[in-house]
């Protein structure tokens, strides 16, 4: 039951996100558009690139979808609405996200084409850098909760959400989440204007449908993670807990889309330079500040 509800939430979230994305790009609000797009992908040929690494090529989209769903599995949408409230939930999320890299490297290598390959390797640097900005802000939230249980992290924010308690951590996590979901302005692995789709470039038909769905679910999962770690999770007045989770998650997801809509793609050198030279020291500073707050404020 819980599994079905979480999966349904992910699908509905992905659909809403696709509607909003198409609205931003075309200026038209068409609720059926994502369903039509999905259906038309199913009806189109699924071309296998020449001399592919078939295993990698076939696995990558599915793996990305699995990663996104696994990540969502440890995020509580309400006190009882979580597939697995692992004792190491916060850590598990970070571990799962590492497989985004595996998936993209496979998608880059699999089709045996230069655009895809460059895209895949670009993401290697991107993920290694930005997963630091995922794990370090999560560490600070776990310090406050004194637990790696995701539900405990939500409960620790009862008095004050982490977005206020540790705003620096929130900003870093939000940026890193966009980078991990490789959405604009961090869409270097796909980069339509530079790599003609990059890792997406060779996928058609059903495989492309899976890949697109996986990318949308990924955004929902990362938004849900932002909600859990920084926006007080399910907490809120009047509405039932699941509704608050959903509203906050969608709000974060839409703001990720908007950031991409209004910004050009970042330069590769800046992407890495800013993360290592600025982001990571700031994340350490965040941990230090949170540590001091925990010691000083009872």
């Amino acid at each position, binding site marked *: 039951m819980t599994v079905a509800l979480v999966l349904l939430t992910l699908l509905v979230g992905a659909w809403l996100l696709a509607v909003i994305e198409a609205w931003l790009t075309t*200026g038209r609000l068409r609720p059926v558009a994502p369903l039509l797009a999905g259906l038309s992908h199913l009806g189109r040929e699924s071309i296998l690139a020449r001399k592919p690494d078939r295993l990698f090529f076939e696995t990558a989209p599915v793996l990305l979808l699995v990663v996104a769903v696994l990540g969502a599995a440890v995020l509580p949408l309400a006190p009882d609405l979580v597939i697995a409230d692992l004792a190491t939930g916060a850590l598990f999320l970070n571990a799962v996200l590492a497989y985004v890299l595996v998936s993209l490297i496979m998608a880059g290598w699999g089709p045996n084409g230069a655009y895809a390959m460059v895209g895949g390797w670009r993401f290697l640097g991107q993920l290694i850098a930005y997963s630091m900005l995922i794990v370090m802000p999560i560490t600070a939230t776990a310090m406050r909760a004194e637990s790696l249980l995701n539900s405990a992290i939500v409960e620790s924010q009862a008095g004050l959400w982490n977005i206020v308690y540790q705003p620096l951590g929130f900003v870093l996590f939000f940026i890193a989440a966009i980078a991990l979901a490789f959405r604009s302005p961090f869409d270097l692995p796909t980069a339509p204007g530079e790599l003609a789709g990059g890792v997406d470039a060779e996928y058609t038909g059903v495989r492309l449908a899976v890949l697109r769905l996986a990318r949308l679910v990924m955004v929902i999962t990362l938004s849900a993670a932002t909600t859990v770690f920084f926006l007080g999770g399910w907490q809120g007045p009047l509405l039932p807990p699941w509704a608050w989770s959903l509203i906050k998650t969608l709000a974060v997801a839409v703001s990720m889309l908007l950031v991409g809509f209004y910004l050009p793609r970042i330069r590769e050198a800046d992407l890495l330079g800013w993360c290592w030279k600025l982001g990571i020291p700031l994340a350490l500073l965040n941990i230090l500040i949170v540590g001091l707050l925990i010691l000083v404020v009872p």
Partner: protein
Amino acid sequence: MSEAATTLAGARKGRPSILRRWVGQALARNLSCLVVPGPEVALAHGLDLAAADMRIAATPRDATVLLIVGELSQKLDEATAVLYAQMPRPRAILVLGGSAPSSLPQADVSADLSQTELMEAATRLQRLLAEGAFAASPDDFDSSILQTKTEYVCPMHPEVVEDEPGSCPKCGMDLVAREAGGDSDAGEHDENRGHEHHEHHHDHKHESEGHDHHHAHHNDHGQSHERHHGHHQNHKHAHDHEQHQGDDDHEHAHCHEHEDHQGQDHGHQQEPAQEQSGTEYICPMHPEVVRSEPGRCPKCGMDLEPHKPGEDESVKEDVSEHDHEHHHDHSGHDHDGHDHSDHDHDHDHDHDHDHDHDHDSSGFMSMVEVTKDLPRSADGLAMDWLEVPFGPCFPGLPGGLKLTLTLDGDGVTEGQATSLVAMNTSSEEVAVETFIERLAAAMPLAPVSYRLLACRAIEQAAGLEPDPAVERGRAAALERERIASHLGWLAQLGRQLSFVWLTRRAAALQLETQRADREQLVALRPALQSLIARLEHTPLLKARLKGIGALPHGSQDLRGTVARASGRTEDARQADAMYRELGFEMRAESAGDAWARLRQRHVEIMTSLDLVEVAGDPELPKLRAIDNPSGTGEATVETPRGRATLRLTQERGQVVSVELDSACSQHIGLVADLVEGQELGDALVAVGSLDLSPWEVTS
């Protein structure tokens, strides 16, 4: 509409069923178009694809409709056939304002170049897709462009290339199949590079091979046929076939054959090691040190490594193949990518063997040896260099421009740009009126400027003095085109940088500007100002453009906006008395990089708007009545991309000789220097910032 016309030429194989009907309807309501030559050309023609419910696809893989705007040059026509072959079925062809390209099936829908025609064509296309997306026996797509050949080479002796399978005359090994155009004739390619007239164009090796519309380089496949594979002719495979996963879709049996080839490849890789015996000992750092006994290297003192001679050779061979690829074979195939990964596999293989030995002895895997002859990057890393084509229909570059970059990882070691739609000025005699129309039609990104240029040159040849009243209207039309053109460049920049807001906003303003009169243009001023103000304060944009594509100050090759952004006061309008009267004042940036070019274009948009406001309603240049239809004339116009000069001679109302000197012919030569040593993204931004119009390159 006849019965036959209800099915698409590019239908997918399948009997009609309810589910397929739904799919057809979904496809019809979700038209994604690959625009040839490019979205910027559609915009310049005033076409609003979004209004016709069409989405612009970044790759042929993602497109249902091949939308061809205007007439295509021969080279672009061929490239388009390759793009079409890469589109998954069901696929449709929509031709606007031109004849259907000769290498493609007949267009499913044709219409004229106008928004109303486009809307109507979209409706017809939707009906066709809804009804005819699936057919029991769809036509195969076959074109001479897509053919390729197989040749047989000895794995040990690259110089042995045969047309037939068999064994190597030197070592007796079985020959291995590969696509013609491999490394062995690289030298020849080199010689032939630049010649565009080869009869055999096979570049699409990819296609050939798995019919699977292979790999990545879609966008340019078209181009690679500069390669000349006159010999090694064996099997010609036609493609368009894809390897489908489902069996209901097999259009062709070729796939299997190809897989066989691959199988052979693998088979052969194992052979050398098995056949060789007798271990040698070599120094991992100094390959010239070879001993029959274990020991130390006399040069560096390292332990010598056991090595089987055969393996050694195979490593060297690999390496030398790389060499060929990287140094000689600049003909732009994608299959470079393939070869490259094939080599990688080979390397892996060799490593495996090394490993085996190494486990027995020293435990050292000789990466040094494997990479010893590979080209080195600036950072000293040995990597495979890939020659990757970008264009002629690449989402981040102007359509018709083909950029060939040698990639070293994500960096560009060298590159060059060519135009596939270059203008040919050595035309036959034509009537003056026809000449004007042709010249304007040949320059889809700046038709007004070239119409004006032709009119002025002809009038000058006829000895007419400029008429101030007429010139004012013309100047207003020219300045309006400049605004629209710069907005089109901004939209293109947005596409290149996935900056969706910019693309939408700039394209919408461009469409509004194109046919606006003075009042309407003046009314657009606040919108233009806010666009510019917003761009100059967009986070990341400055970081993205600043310092990229910097050009030396005062270079004589520079013209127009590119020159003025480098601080060079170069503007044909300064010499024009009428412009002085309008209060024209030139302003120039000085940094000479992509950011300066962006700002310079901003400045020029506003300057042009001021000029239109003073000059009055724009009037399209029309040839004034001329009395003396013979003579020689020369005119210069500051087009949106820079000064263009036209010299022509006319006799009895016929234009007999023409000489055109345009800014883009100069600027395209800057590309090689701009991209060298840059990171890929920066190189593309640098090329994009030149605002090249490949049509305005004279061949």
